[in-house]
């Protein structure tokens, strides 16, 4: 599982650098997210712009990250969904669960808006 991990303004940005997110590599993404959460990174953005294919197990890994973040009063947001990937979220109704942004800048500024409010 190739990922690029960056920190910006107390937000952790994980870019999944794989064409496919499937039962072969999604367990690793799940573990990476969990490890980052346990290290105290409670605000995460998963950038899926390089991902052209996601299966139910890839979706499951993201749900797992989402639940683990919420359990720690954090949050996990998504951005950069390719059209076919987006359609998987719609088919499984997960687009109503996740905050989904078109790109990382919009996802980042959604965290900043939040900071200003509080």
């Amino acid at each position, binding site marked *: 599982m190739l990922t690029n991990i960056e920190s910006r303004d107390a937000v952790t940005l994980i870019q999944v650098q794989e064409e496919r997110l*499937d039962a*072969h590599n999604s367990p690793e993404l799940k573990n990476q997210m969990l490890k980052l959460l346990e290290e105290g990174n409670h605000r995460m953005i998963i950038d899926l712009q390089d991902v052209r*294919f996601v*299966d139910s197990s890839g979706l*499951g890994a993201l749900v797992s990250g989402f639940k683990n973040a919420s359990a720690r009063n954090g949050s996990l947001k998504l951005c950069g969904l390719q059209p076919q990937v987006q359609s998987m979220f719609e*088919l499984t*109704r997960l687009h109503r669960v996740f905050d989904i942004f078109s790109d990382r800048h919009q996802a980042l500024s959604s965290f900043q808006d939040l900071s200003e409010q509080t």
Partner: protein
Amino acid sequence: MSERIFLDISFPYETDYLCLIGKIGEQLAWNLSSFSGDRETLAYHVNLVLTEAVANAIEHAADNRSSPFLHVTIRVENGLLTIRVFDQGPGFSLCDVQESCDDTLEEHGRGIFIIKSLMDRVSYIKLDDGHVLEMEKNLY
């Protein structure tokens, strides 16, 4: 005359092969001249249902198997695309699997739902030496 092609693929019960199997199906879909709909979407869907069905066979049916190879067939004939994934596991009932995904935060349980949503007919059939998940799609 409509196209006909029969593909048989055997490979070990390992997720390393998911990508290749999915992409072979995708390649087939891209090259189906008889299909009148959106080819890119068909290619994605064929890749996806193959990936889901094979991943299920690896996860749920890899135990009491007599052969070290998983067996998949893809056939196109008379405007019908049929994908079969054979397994030698304990089997399950398609009817026991949920029909919708509404607002669930489960990590699992979306594979069969996706397959049923994207294919026109899905059956899980008992054979002498195991089961087969049969997925059909009308090309026109």
